[in-house]
């Protein structure tokens, strides 16, 4: 066995001013060419581990550090992030703060120039990394004009420009649509397979990348809880951490099938060998997939009629969007980055005025924007929302805490309380519609399930709910209807069971495994279908 590219030896670490360790006695080794996933709930220590691997812990963050981390044979206590950066490329969650120049070409060049490469090497390196990542068409674009997915690719390009031996990635797909997310994972896999680049990837949506991984390391409260191949990890997750199970693995567990699948392909092979998957899936019915819903116009919570949003000297972001929401309806709004989802929600809430068309609202539209932190302007939770609103959100006991010290789920609940107000509000003050823009960014599965439950509760109470999301699993859990936007137009508006079961990208893992059969979207529904099929087999 060759020397490990990364090794943690009994590493413990606490952030300055905190007693609880973020990493607790963590030991493992990573061999060159491995593709390793880091799994764990929010706050389990994934980001801290990545920071320790690239030397930001302890050099940048300070705190108490014990143990030894070596990267490419260099002890991180003796060598800072700048020196270690020659061997490790790092990509964090927010691409906005990882681009330091105004143009893509300058961004890629700077990474090489700062390492002392000559002019010819810089030019060649920029060209090669741009071609490898498919961003050559972006080279002369301004970084502030790029979409989230493009920014993430450029940031990855800057991290890879120096041909690092290991790439450390902290939830790089959290802001990407399913298409861009899959492309990024595919790209990492290619880097790993063709150039033997070691990948250490922290991710919440494991179903996206488990099939690409050789190994999974799971953390629980800073401790290493599982270290094995994907199959071993899924077995461990089924026993010890169900919140980390992929939807496919959960469906198999509920249906009593083994082994738990690491990806769609493996799952389908297992089902086929058990006679639970038809030899040939029928093609989806195009008539059904494209069918538009007809809605009655009375008693609407929200109505949009031919809404256009055209920028002066720029493109049209929305192009004649018409849609209606009834009270108690829950709708998932899906589409690629830049399809117009956020703009549509801003029109619904009255933050923007259509350049053509009109919006009718039965009452107030409460809009929860992407980043809950944008709502917090006070030092205490109690100053942000009324006591009744906090009590309704289950945050009454946290009134004296600083909003920025809350966990991800608590911050989301507080932001929701701020925009919706108290349940006891007057009829006029209570929102008729709750609109949420990408509420699950960076959330773990447990917190997402809580939010989906809250949205279902609100819909059952008669509030219309519309959620813009890139996460098909979350859309399936909280919405009955799904709308697909592309280039500012509604291209599909149908029951969620139709939209999320019929595609490659905008489909849940359960639906992809079952080929959309029976409109099953969630693991529970898929397991029921499989059990029924198994029973049918036995009867036949």
């Amino acid at each position, binding site marked *: 066995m060759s020397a490990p590219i990364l090794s943690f030896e009994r590493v413990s670490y606490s952030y300055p001013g905190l007693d609880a360790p973020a990493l607790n006695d963590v030991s493992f080794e990573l061999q060159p060419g491995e593709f390793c996933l880091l799994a764990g709930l929010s706050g389990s220590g994934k980001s801290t581990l990545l920071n320790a691997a690239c030397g*930001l812990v302890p050099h940048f963050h300070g705190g108490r550090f014990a143990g030894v981390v070596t990267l490419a044979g260099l002890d991180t206590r003796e060598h800072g*992030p700048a020196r270690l950066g020659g061997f490790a490329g*790092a990509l964090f969650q927010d691409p906005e703060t990882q681009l*330091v120049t105004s143009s893509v070409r300058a961004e890629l060049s700077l990474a090489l120039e700062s390492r*002392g490469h000559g002019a010819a090497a810089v030019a060649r390196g920029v060209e090669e990394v741009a071609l490898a990542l498919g961003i050559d068409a972006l080279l002369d674009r301004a970084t*502030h*004009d790029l979409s989230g997915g493009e920014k993430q690719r450029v940031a990855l390009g800057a991290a890879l420009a120096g041909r690092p031996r290991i790439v450390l990635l902290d939830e790089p797909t959290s802001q990407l649509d399913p298409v861009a997310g899959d492309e990024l994972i595919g790209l990492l896999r290619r880097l790993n397979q063709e150039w033997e680049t070691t990948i250490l990837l922290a991710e919440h949506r494991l179903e996206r990348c488990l099939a690409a991984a050789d190994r999974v390391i799971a953390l629980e409260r800073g401790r290493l809880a599982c270290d094995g191949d994907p199959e071993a990890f899924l077995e461990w997750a089924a026993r010890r951490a169900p919140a980390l199970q992929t939807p496919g693995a959960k469906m198999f567990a509920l249906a009593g099938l083994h082994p738990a699948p690491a990806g769609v392909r493996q799952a389908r092979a297992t089902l086929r060998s058990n006679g639970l998957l038809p030899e040939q899936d029928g093609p989806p019915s195009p008539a059904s997939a494209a069918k538009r819903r007809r809605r009655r116009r009375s008693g609407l919570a929200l109505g949009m009629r031919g809404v256009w949003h055209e920028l002066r000297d720029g493109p049209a972001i929305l192009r004649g969007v018409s849609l209606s929401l009834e009270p108690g309806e829950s709708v998932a709004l899906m589409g690629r980055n830049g399809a117009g989802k956020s703009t549509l929600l801003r029109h619904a809430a009255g933050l923007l005025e259509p350049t053509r068309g009109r919006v009718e609202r039965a009452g107030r539209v409460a809009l929860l924007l992407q980043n809950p932190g944008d709502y917090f*302007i006070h030092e205490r939770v109690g100053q942000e929302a009324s006591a009744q609103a906090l009590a309704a959100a289950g945050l009454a006991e946290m009134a004296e805490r600083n909003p920025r010290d809350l966990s991800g789920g608590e911050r989301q609940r507080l932001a929701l309380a701020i925009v*919706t107000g108290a349940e006891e509000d007057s009829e006029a003050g209570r929102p008729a519609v709750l609109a949420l823009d990408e509420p699950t960014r960076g959330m773990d599965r447990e917190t997402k399930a809580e939010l989906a439950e809250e949205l279902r509760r609100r819909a059952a109470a008669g509030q219309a709910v519309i959620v813009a999301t890139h996460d098909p699993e979350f859309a399936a859990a909280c919405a009955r209807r799904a709308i697909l936007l592309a280039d500012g137009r509604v291209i599909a508006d149908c029951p969620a069971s139709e939209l999320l079961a019929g595609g490659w990208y905008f489909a849940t893992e359960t639906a992809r495994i079952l080929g959309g059969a029976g409109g099953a979207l969630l693991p529970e529904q898929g397991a029921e279908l499989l059990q029924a099929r198994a029973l049918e087999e036995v009867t036949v």
Partner: protein
Amino acid sequence: MRPMGGMLFFYRRIASPLHATRATVGAAWALALTGATLVLYHPLVLFALLLAVLGAGFGTGVGPLLARALRTALIVAIPIVVVNVLVSRDGLTVFARLGDLGPFGQGDLTVEAVLYGAVIALKVTLLILITTLAGLAVDPDELLRVFRRLSFRSALTASLATRMLPVLAADAQRLGEAQRTRSGGPPSGARARVALLAAVVGGSLDRAMDVAATLEVRGFATATRAPRLTRPFSRHDIAFAASAAAITALAVVGRLAGAASFSAYPRVHMPTSADTLVLCAALIAAVLLPFCDRRGIDR
């Protein structure tokens, strides 16, 4: 959502002769225009320069943005004229008497003061337009790259500032939107404003920390001098370099030969000869000719 860059003026690569020119030459061309604006005083010549700069804006494809900048410049220009008329006591042609203004003396408003104020306002307007045009069409990163060879850290800091402006503008817009969506409406009152300002500043500091972490892992702490890039001069590099030289020469000759001579006090002296008209035409031609060649402007 469309980024904030759409609402403010930031460099964006588009197909135009000025964008196709290397940043150092583009900056030198803008400097030549600035020099001409500072050296020349004749209103007719300055007006010719204004037309030329606006024409250059349209030739660069940023005409509408430059027109918006012109409207903004007028907000600055009009008070300059008004203040000069009120404070200047040097002119002889009085058109209105405000009487005794106590410590400010006699309030006599003169035609000379109006004209001199207008010339200064025209110069300020021109400087705003030239700066805007340069900001929109000269790649700041390419320009700062040159300075990185001299002082890496200072140039990198300037690069970061250039990059962070649209990011922070977008952050401020996002925070403002979030406050507008609060159930009781946006918080009002001085205390709320201070809290919001603190949140904006806190957000900027968080951003700064994240950017600092990125710079650390990219190895900028151990960075060395940027290598010298050698690339052949394009037709646009040559055209704009020649244009910059011509503008500078015309401004100097116009000033020294008296073709653009102008004095406002005590009486307006504004000789307008054939030389003045030739100078105007030559300046317009020198500024606009490089925009006629549109070969190879896209990248």
